[in-house]
């Protein structure tokens, strides 16, 4: 556990809040989470009309006595859930120095989430991708899984360019079991394919969260002087005087953010923008509080 990605202060506040799944997830083990499979537990939820094919053992005869209608009793059942973390390790994630490096920030976030999920006795899996899926760690709830993830994170080097959309569809096909999906990426891809991939996950019943990891430079474009921008993902260089193009860049970038955010909202995908210059210790709790509030609501 002595990984650089598990910082004590981060973990302390994250643990205090825990991760409460807002949706009911399917679990293999009984835990704090509610199963989507209603019917066989002690906590009654509702009645529904009997339809041929239903097990007659679940008919509520008391209700039949009152209403002379066959009804089935449904119950909620707390389950374990599977959390899939999809980490973008493309070269564009390499941007930023020190703590503000996007990939490092994303790795930290991955580690924290993994730890929290496992500590809740839920299972967590990791997918590392760039243009293609590079690493796949199937979900597991054992504490060894955290170690495995942390080791994996430490070994990840950025490579290739982001092409997240098709990849999400590919991952969706392999994770049929519904759960939580955290996509951690700068999402420098075409918006439509990306949304398409996210919607594919969502279609399978996953609760999808996009941690849009961005550096403040990318958000604010605060440069001046004569700069030569060398493409991290593609061999391209652009020489310009950035202060002169800043308004245009911000307009284009904000339009992109707006389009992405709107697309996510429309598909009920949780969109979380992370600015790597803001410490995770402040950002993550805020997110979890918001998530919890939404779950209770």
């Amino acid at each position, binding site marked *: 556990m002595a990984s650089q990605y598990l910082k004590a202060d981060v973990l302390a506040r994250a643990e205090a809040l825990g991760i409460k799944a807002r949706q009911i997830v399917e679990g293999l083990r009984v835990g704090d989470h509610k199963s989507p499979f209603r019917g066989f537990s002690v906590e009654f939820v509702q009645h529904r009309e009997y339809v041929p094919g239903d097990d007659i053992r679940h008919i509520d005869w008391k209700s039949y006595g009152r209403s002379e209608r066959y009804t089935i009793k449904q119950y909620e059942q707390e389950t374990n859930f599977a959390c899939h973390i999809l980490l973008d390790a493309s070269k564009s994630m*390499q941007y930023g120095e020190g703590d503000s490096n996007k990939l490092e920030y994303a790795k930290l976030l991955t580690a924290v989430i993994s730890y929290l999920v496992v500590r809740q006795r839920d299972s967590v899996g990791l997918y590392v991708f760039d243009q293609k899926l590079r690493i796949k760690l199937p979900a597991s709830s054992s504490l060894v899984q955290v170690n495995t993830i942390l080791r994996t994170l430490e070994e990840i080097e950025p490579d290739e360019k982001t092409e997240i959309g098709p990849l999400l569809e590919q991952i969706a096909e392999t994770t049929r079991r519904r759960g939580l999906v955290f996509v951690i990426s700068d999402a420098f891809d075409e918006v439509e394919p990306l949304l398409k991939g996210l919607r594919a996950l969502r279609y399978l019943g996953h609760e999808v969260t996009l941690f849009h990891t961005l550096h403040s430079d990318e958000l604010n474009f605060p440069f001046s002087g004569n700069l*030569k*921008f*060398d493409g991290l993902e593609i061999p391209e260089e*652009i020489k310009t005087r950035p202060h002169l*193009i800043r308004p245009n860049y911000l307009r284009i970038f904000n339009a992109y953010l707006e389009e992405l955010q709107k697309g996510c909202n429309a598909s009920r995908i949780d969109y979380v923008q992370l600015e790597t210059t803001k410490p995770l210790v402040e950002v993550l709790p805020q997110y979890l509080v918001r998530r919890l509030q939404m779950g209770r609501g």
Partner: protein
Amino acid sequence: MSFLNPWMLLGGLAAGIPIALHFLYRARYKPIPWGAMKFLRLAVEQTSRRLKFQELILLIIRTLALLLLALALSRLTTCVGTKGTGPRGEAVDAIFIIDTSYSMNAKEGVQTRLDVAKEAAIKVINGLPAGSTVQIITCSDRATTVGPRSPSNLDQAKLIINGLKATQQATDYLPGLIEAVNAFERTTGNQKEVYLFSDMGRNGWESQSSAIRDKCTEIKNQATLYLVRCANQPIYNVSIIDLKPQTVIPHTGERVPFTVLVKNTSTETVKNLTLSLEVDGKTNEKEDQPIEKIAPGEIRAINLTAKIEEAGWRILTAKLNTDDLPDDNRFSKVLLIRKKVRVLMIDGAPDERDPERSAAFFLGHAILPVPERPAELREKYHVRLSVLRTREVSPSSLNEQDVCILANVPLTGPNALSPEVVRRLTEFVKGGGGLFITGGPNLEPKSYNRGLGSEGEKLLPSDIVDFAIRPENDPVYPDLSSAEPFSFLGKFAEKGSRLNMLKNTDILTYVRVQEPEAGTAQVLMRYTDGSPFILSRRHGDGEILFLTARADRWDWGYLATNPTFIPLVQGVLTQLVERSSSGYNLIAGQTLRYLPNDTNKSYVLTTPPKDSRSPEEKIKLGKPIPVVGSDRNGLIVNETSTAGIYIITPEGEKDGQPFAVNPDPREIEGMDPLTDEVINDLIGFKAIYFGASEESDAITSNTRSKNERTVWILSLVLIFIFGESLWAWYCSKAW
């Protein structure tokens, strides 16, 4: 346009700084790895054209601002020389054009206008900034740069100015302006100034106004032009404009009448003048004639007689008592007084049976108006007449003749004048002989035009068209009002003269000629229907007079029997004889040409004194040299700017050939000064004027500072800087 601190123009190289920085910064880009290339590329694509344009504008503004700054520091001045690039600061290259035409000798109080001009010029020199140069050009109808040898030697310039004397030439500013433009080549400074010191007479501006306008514009483009007025008061002046014999050939032994033409050139009536005429400076035999008054602009012919005692070259001088302009109060004429004037008359229509019907009959009697008996009378008479028939004439017949008369001479047919004689006539006239052609039925147009006219020897003043025949009850008459006043016919037109009777002469038929082209010939008198009566043409040193009426029998009219016929013929002879002396009577500035008989001798020129205080000068001319246009060696004298008598004498001998040089008569035609406005109109821009008595320092200093554009350019620099700031701010705070 020039610069007072031209070295500061090197500061213009600073304009390269923004350009260099532009390229330097473009070359030096700080690399930065970047992931969001897609958005950056889009932003650049959408912005780059605008950015490039904005950057270009900024670059231009900054470059121009620096250039203008350098321009301001180099102290750009306009209206000054473009060629001057030397580091001489505010030093001025002044070029003085000083009018030395004879109107500048007019009195301005106790001084002459030239004295006023000299004082003004010296005042300008005293006010020139340190290091300035001066070049002095004298200008009449020609210009000469008179110094100083070193233009920076201002003391020498002052000495030269003080020593200037007026000429008797007319005013024409063009040569002076041309010389001034040429003088620019000899300047090295930054500021050029041209000063014209003159009375601003109309003649000087208008004689070649178009060329003057061009030249002034040229000067304006390179220098500042100052016009310094040296005349404050009008000239009270009467001028002698001509002296000529009347209708009597000047001869020895008796007083001969002369006409002296005087003109009041001033704007007010001049009173109580006395005109005198003397021969060879002998004042004891001079004749005086008082002129009570003469109205402004009036030309009056005054009759005076002179007694010529000896044959040979005589100098007649008419003098007027003093007025404001002394130069034209004296007029000299050199005349060759012959013991006998030799006249050859060729009779083209002799009639032996009835001599009165001969073409030569009446002419002969008019030429020799003395009885035939006793013979001594004709022997003593100052004209010797020879009459020959056409067939008797040979080229040698013209040798030793002064005048030849073609009386109704045919050029075609059995009695035609031979072509050799016609050709000899050309030489005869060119050499100073006079030719008188009278009309008649033998003047067949084709043969005359081909022989003597435009298709032949070009002696006829104008080609013959045909014979104009008038009805008997509708004759034409000589029109006295058309008489050329400066010819011998002027006398016939004088009011009250008995010679007015000429106008009563019925002319029924005359030789109709083409109207002569201007400059080739002159109509001296016309008929009342406007056709030429007598024409004149000059050829070489001689003259041809053409009488289109018949001078013999009276079936063409009654000229030969008119009482004025004898004076008319005498007048013709007088003019033709006088004309032979024309080469010895010059206008100031004309080239004096002398072809001596003895070309082995060396000659000396005695020039007239330049003013009353100067002595005569003697200049050695050496031996005659080949002269252009002559097969004989001769002597050429170009410097005849001073009016008076010039004498060329064989070295060591006493007697020589006199030449009379008189003031240029063009000067009196336009001595009235033009106003500033009229001059501005003529030259096409506003020159800077000041009076000679004004403080030139203040005016020139003011003009010099006005010409400097530093303040304007600095203002422009500020505007550019402000514009740059605005533009940079507009272009997203590019600073």
